[in-house]
């Protein structure tokens, strides 16, 4: 058996099996449990890199579950794909890399942060990763729904992890109900499409798409559900509750889960509906983007809770991604020359958002760990005791606010320029919001880290510092060498978005 042939399945299977193994090992030894979870995730990360390399070198990868050949998408006795198909193009590979990388760093952080009920925690943690990976690798709409549910249920349980604070249970309840209603919309739209085409495979539906009224109803349902899960304003209100109440590492790993929903949104628009997409959709995405930026940044400014503040900043960052992708989608439908640049800016910012806001959440988690305090009004002078954490916060601050030479600046400048081509007003709003974002983070830095020593505390443990330093190093590297990242990671994802024909061909043109 050549392991390379089974990479897509292994990337999902390893964390899935480890998830169910973890509570058993936990009964024997906590150290052994941590070691097994770390080895499993490190192995998944290596396999994900191999998979990404394979996709970038050899094009779209197909993996058919239960077939005699893993590439036989259409069974001999059938005319359409009926088995579970994993389809990995540049976009999927890009998303998988983000999800596994952030989960690995979150895991290292959690070794110090999570002290109680670790067996359950890591089971849920790994299941959340499995859900994300499944959403990003599947070529099948129904499996997308299943993995969306897996992600939501695991995430809700993790949000409520510190259940002794009542607010965590409230946040988790809101999250699971909102997620369930969103998932219901997704399931209903899948039912509509299945009723019309007798198909569940995304490539097959894209090929059969006739843009009927039923298709448009399904589009609105899918679009609004994934926009909700992505945290797009004005449907974002669940996000500060969920991100704000989850443990530090989970707040960070929740970012790729919203990114996975954004991935699903883009997959629906660019691949399934592609050129038959209604012209109103790019405009709606742009409006969502602007609202997210404006509401996110202005609401962040008045927050008192450190994690809620960063959560609203995360909403604003989602807005930048949606703005760029909306402009890119508009260009895609109208064959505009700035399309690739806008999509490049959006995808690059998606990666940067996960890193920058992720680092800020880890720092916030570290501050709460060290002081037991979340209120900005009660903190002060932490730089005296937490020197490394303070410097790492500055790196995250500069990156999220889009200060040069950080990665956030590189992606935002691409967004500003491409968005300017559609309307200079959009660019002006985006730039002003970015300046406000800087003001928001300066508020945290001034209130929490500078000034006289108001709170007695010690620096966070080494595993927490290690994952923060790794994130900061990636931020600085991406900032100093943005062209390298764009060429090797972002552009293949953008090409995959644009070239929906290849996605369809990979399933419908292979195997008989």
């Amino acid at each position, binding site marked *: 058996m050549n392991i390379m042939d089974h990479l897509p399945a292994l990337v999902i299977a390893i964390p899935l099996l480890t998830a169910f193994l973890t509570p058993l090992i936990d009964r024997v030894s906590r150290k052994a449990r941590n070691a097994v979870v770390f080895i499993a995730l490190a192995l998944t990360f290596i396999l994900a890199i191999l998979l990404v390399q394979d996709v970038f070198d050899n094009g779209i990868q197909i993996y058919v579950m239960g077939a005699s050949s893993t590439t036989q998408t259409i069974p001999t006795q059938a005319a359409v794909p009926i088995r579970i198909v994993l389809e990995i193009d540049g976009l999927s590979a890009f998303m998988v890399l983000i999800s596994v990388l952030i989960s690995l760093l979150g895991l290292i952080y959690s070794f110090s942060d999570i002290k109680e009920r670790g067996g359950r925690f890591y089971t849920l943690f790994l299941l959340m990763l499995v859900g994300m990976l499944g959403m990003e690798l599947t070529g099948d709409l129904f499996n997308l729904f299943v993995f969306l549910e897996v992600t939501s249920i695991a995430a809700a349980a993790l949000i409520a992890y510190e259940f002794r604070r009542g607010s965590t249970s409230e946040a988790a*309840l*809101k999250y699971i*109900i*909102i997620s369930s*209603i969103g998932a219901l*919309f997704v399931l209903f739209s899948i039912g509509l499409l299945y009723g019309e085409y007798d198909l569940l495979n995304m490539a097959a539906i894209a090929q059969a798409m006739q843009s009927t009224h039923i298709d*448009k*109803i399904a589009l*609105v*349902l899918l679009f*609004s559900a994934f*926009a*909700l899960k992505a945290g797009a304003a*004005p*449907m974002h*209100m*669940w996000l*500060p*509750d969920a991100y704000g109440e989850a443990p530090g590492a989970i707040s960070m790993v929740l970012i790729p889960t919203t990114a996975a929903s954004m991935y699903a949104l883009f997959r629906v628009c660019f691949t399934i509906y592609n050129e038959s997409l*209604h*012209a*109103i959709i790019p405009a*709606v995405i742009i409006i969502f983007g602007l609202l997210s930026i404006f*509401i996110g940044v*202005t*609401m962040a*400014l*008045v927050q*008192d809770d450190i994690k809620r503040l960063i959560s609203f900043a995360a909403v604003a960052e989602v807005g930048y991604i949606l703005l760029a992708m909306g402009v890119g989608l508009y260009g895609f439908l109208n064959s505009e020359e*700035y399309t690739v*640049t806008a999509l490049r800016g959006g995808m690059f910012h998606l990666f940067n958002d996960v890193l920058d806001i992720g680092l800020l959440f880890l720092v916030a988690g570290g501050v709460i760990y060290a002081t037991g305090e979340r209120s*900005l*009004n009660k903190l*002060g*002078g932490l730089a005296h005791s937490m020197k490394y954490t303070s410097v790492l916060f500055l790196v995250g601050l500069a990156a999220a606010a889009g200060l*040069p*030479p950080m990665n956030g*600046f*590189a992606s935002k*400048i*691409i967004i500003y*320029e*491409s968005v*300017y*081509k559609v309307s200079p007003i959009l660019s002006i709003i985006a730039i002003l919001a970015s300046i406000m974002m800087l*003001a928001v983070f300066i*508020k*945290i830095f*001034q*209130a*929490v880290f500078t*000034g*006289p020593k*108001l709170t007695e505390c010690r620096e966070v443990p080494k595993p927490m510092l290690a994952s923060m330093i790794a994130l900061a190093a990636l931020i600085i590297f991406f*900032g*100093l*060498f*943005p*062209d390298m990242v*764009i060429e090797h990671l972002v552009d293949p994802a953008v090409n995959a978005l644009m070239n929906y024909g290849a996605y369809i061909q990979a399933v419908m043109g292979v195997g008989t």
Partner: protein
Amino acid sequence: MILMMLKTIGGFWDPLILVLAAIVVAIIAYIIRAAGRRNHKTGEQAKPFFSGVAEPSKEAMHVRASNLYWGFTEALKGYYTSMKKMHSGMLNDYIGWFVGIAALIFVVLFVMEVL
């Protein structure tokens, strides 16, 4: 020398040039600082003068987070009042916004179809 250039629509962005410029500026700043007076005192001379009033403790003077940007939030009071209503924390409101937005997209999409 342009090392790692990111081409954009309007030109290019090279972070390494910025880093190089920052290093040059830092060196110049250090040279200027080093040329300063060496007899500068850090004790009594460095204390702030409040017209003879004793300086409050540093802890008492620390500007708390809620005091920052007070003027900005006061000027946008109307906006923030409506935003607080929107972020009520009530699950019913959250679902209402979601269903309302989905319905609005439906209406706009099908009105455009008809027109």
